[in-house]
């Protein structure tokens, strides 16, 4: 018998017309590392909440069927008992942390359940999650990745057999994401925990997970070993899940008869090396157009900018020390670098939210100091990482109209309608932005950002927290926007976005611009990528593993280079 047994589970949320989980049957073996995949709204999170008893003990609704976790029937148990068997880490994990210091938070649950050695339990959990030495730190001093590890430690402290993580790496740069998965692997292999992750990043599934479960419309489609599962390219894509790029490329090549029909599709770069070995790269390739070196007039400039943040104790933290940077009109720029490299700070400087301690920030040649923030809005606009904070009215129509309305822009009602149309929001015009789905929220925030037709548009992580299908949709929107916005700067960890969209890439590391150039210049420089912890898309690594000179950033580019014949 497995550690998790689900028999004929049906569940309907209170007030919902359709059941969210519909006759689910599932067995998970002890020690598994299972990825749960599926479309948005297919019931992934609901299934996980059934396992820790939140459903039906805390969230009511219609529940039928039988769920057994570690031999305990969840209906006959309570949330407290189940919490010691199943640890849960939310997607918005920062809201899960309720105590001010690291050790306090890690041991909080143990204290609540009356364990006298709660501090030792907390320390042990922190060590297992790689946070030893940070026990006395305050939670707001931690980076995003560390905060996630703390949320994980809080769950691990109770010593559960099963750990469930809802999209653990959605907001993290690759370095932190690797660290999270490293910790999870350790917990799985060394401490024998059974791990369930809801995950969209199939590259990580290929590298770390043992099995994959596909949920479709509240039902289990199948559960298969990871490699077999990821090879079902068409089926996954029909559910808006995109297999690793290596697998996609191999699948396309097999379709075209360039790989033998029966071959097992590779899922990682290592496997790809063997599978693609017989293919030769076309040598005579048209060289991609380099970035035009003659750029337009300066749109924004930072000169000798020094910024530091106050800290609760001790010396202020210096983010930038004498930073110089120019952005030119018409450029499409990606700003990359690990968490905490200063990307958001740079954007805050440009919109005048932060003032530099030294140096000047100028837009179109005029120093920001002489411009009021309210007058700035026609020059520059910022779309926050968290779209909720952009919704200040009770409908997205009102939000998009607001800036034009208060300025008495001519024909603002028509312009609002046009924007709603353009961003495919007309149907949702009267809804409150906060209640929309992730992708709709993001589109609405983009529409708000471009409403005043600013010369420079700044986007902070426009694809964070979105599943791959929605990311593609946003990427499409961004490409469509190229014609209506002049200069765009995107801060992001999403390297596929960088490769497919940006013309110029600026790499920040430790508050300094360490590289600035085209994608070939940035990603082609292996030493640089290793030093600042940026990682090109998987297909790029695959191409280079086959041929050092191959620089391909997308699956179609890879195909055209390695296909031999027609492109």
């Amino acid at each position, binding site marked *: 018998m497995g550690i998790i047994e689900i028999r004929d589970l049906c569940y309907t949320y209170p007030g919902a017309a359709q059941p969210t989980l519909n006759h689910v049957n599932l067995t998970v073996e002890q020690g598994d590392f299972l990825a749960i995949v599926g479309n948005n709204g297919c019931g992934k999170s609901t299934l996980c909440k059934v396992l820790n008893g939140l459903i039906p003990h805390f969230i009511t609704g219609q529940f039928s069927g039988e769920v057994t976790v570690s031999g305990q029937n969840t209906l006959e148990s309570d949330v407290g008992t189940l919490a010691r068997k199943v640890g849960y880490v939310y997607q918005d994990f920062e809201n899960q942390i309720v105590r001010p210091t690291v050790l306090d938070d890690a041991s909080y649950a143990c204290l609540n359940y009356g364990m006298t050695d709660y501090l030792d339990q907390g320390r042990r959990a922190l060590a297992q999650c790689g946070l030893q030495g940070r026990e006395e730190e305050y939670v707001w001093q931690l980076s995003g990745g560390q905060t996630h590890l703390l949320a994980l430690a809080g769950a691990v402290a109770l010593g559960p057999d099963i750990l469930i993580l809802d999209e653990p790496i959605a907001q993290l740069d690759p370095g932190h994401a690797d660290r999270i998965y490293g910790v999870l692997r350790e917990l799985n292999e060394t401490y024998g925990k059974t791990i369930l992750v809801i995950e969209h990043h199939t590259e990580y599934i290929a590298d770390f997970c043992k099995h994959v479960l596909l949920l479709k419309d509240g039902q289990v489609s199948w559960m298969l070993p990871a490699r077999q599962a990821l090879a079902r390219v068409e089926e996954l894509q029909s559910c808006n899940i995109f297999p690793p790029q290596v697998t996609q490329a191999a699948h396309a090549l097999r379709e075209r008869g360039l790989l033998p029909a029966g071959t097992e599709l590779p899922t990682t770069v290592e496997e790809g090396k063997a599978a693609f070995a017989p293919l030769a790269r076309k040598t005579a390739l048209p060289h991609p157009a380099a970035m035009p070196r003659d750029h337009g007039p300066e749109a924004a400039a930072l000169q000798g900018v020094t910024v530091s943040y106050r800290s609760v104790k001790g010396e202020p933290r210096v983010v930038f020390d004498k930073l110089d940077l120019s952005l030119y009109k018409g450029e499409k720029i990606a700003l990359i670098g690990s968490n905490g490299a200063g990307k958001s700070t740079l954007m805050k400087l440009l919109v005048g939210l932060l003032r530099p301690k030294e140096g000047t920030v100028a837009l179109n040649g005029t120093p920001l100091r002489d411009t009021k923030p309210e007058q700035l809005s026609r020059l520059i606009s910022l779309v926050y990482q968290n779209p909720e904070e952009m919704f*200040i009215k009770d409908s997205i129509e009102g939000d998009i109209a607001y800036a034009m309305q208060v300025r008495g822009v001519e024909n603002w009602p028509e312009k609002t309608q046009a924007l709603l149309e353009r961003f495919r929001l007309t149907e949702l015009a009267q809804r409150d932005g906060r209640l929309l789905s992730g992708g709709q929220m993001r589109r609405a925030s983009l529409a708000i950002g471009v409403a005043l037709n600013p010369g420079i548009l700044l986007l902070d992580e426009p694809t964070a927290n979105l599943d791959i299908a929605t990311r593609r949709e946003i990427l499409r929107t961004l490409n469509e926007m190229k014609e209506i916005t002049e200069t765009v700067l995107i801060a992001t960890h999403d390297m596929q976005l960088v490769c497919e969209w940006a013309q110029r890439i600026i790499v920040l590391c430790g508050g300094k611009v360490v590289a600035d150039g085209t994608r070939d210049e940035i990603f082609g420089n292996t030493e640089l990528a290793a030093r600042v912890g940026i990682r090109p898309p998987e297909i790029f690594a695959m191409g280079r593993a086959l041929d050092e000179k191959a620089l391909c950033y997308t699956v179609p580019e890879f195909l055209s280079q390695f296909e031999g014949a027609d492109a």
Partner: protein
Amino acid sequence: MMQKLSENILDKFSMDFLRSQVLKNAYGNNDTVIAARDPRVLLAWYLFFGLVPWFVQDMTFLLGCFVLVMITTLLARVAGLVLLLFGVGVFSQTGYLLLVTWLFGGDASAIMPLLILTLKVATISLASVTVFSGLDPDRLANGLMWYGCPERLSFSISYAYRILPMLMEEFQNVLLSYRLRGNPPAHDTFAGKVRYLAYQVKIIMYAFYPLMLNTAKRSRTTVEALEIRGYRYAATNKEVRRIKLAGLRLTWDDGIFAALSLLWVAATLLLGTLV
């Protein structure tokens, strides 16, 4: 020059500044003499200096208490903003009366009672400042719990400090949305300045609406997480309370602190009878 100054003040008084002051106040000074005291001793101490001055009219005693709480406030290294608020508070309560009476030639018979009242208010406020901002919120919560306050109250205190910085950051971002997208009235003339001020106040009020909704959205996860992490379970369990309070320990230094305060009060009383 004047404009530069006012700009500078506004610059300093940003949300970012408030946030850092709140954090500093709560956690930035946990290595002071006051922060190291047992919260139970400090609360008892506060009970004396927060209540007794109301009922005593003796000038020497009040002055003595005032000096003592001033010393403890300095020892607690309270954040500047709190002290500023204290100053404004005392002045707006009684200080202005004192000043006006004195300016318009009130004699000693009018000034003395006002001076005494101001001293009382100042002493009590400074005693509160010492205890509530000198102690870190968790120790304060534990102290309150020892005196029998419900667990929910003590949890609220420490959770408020956990969530306050997040709320302020969110509020700052919502305000920024208004600032970037709004269109405030011009403020070159005096009438314009008044309108501008009214506009600012209006925006701050409007900004609460999105803030509340965003907070409600966030708290969905927090509520579930608290349930999983046994918050409700702990609230009814006596054993958990005992474990939590086991961390409180009286030391010799606490005794010395209490004795010194007592000695000081006795000395001022003695001085009062001598004068």
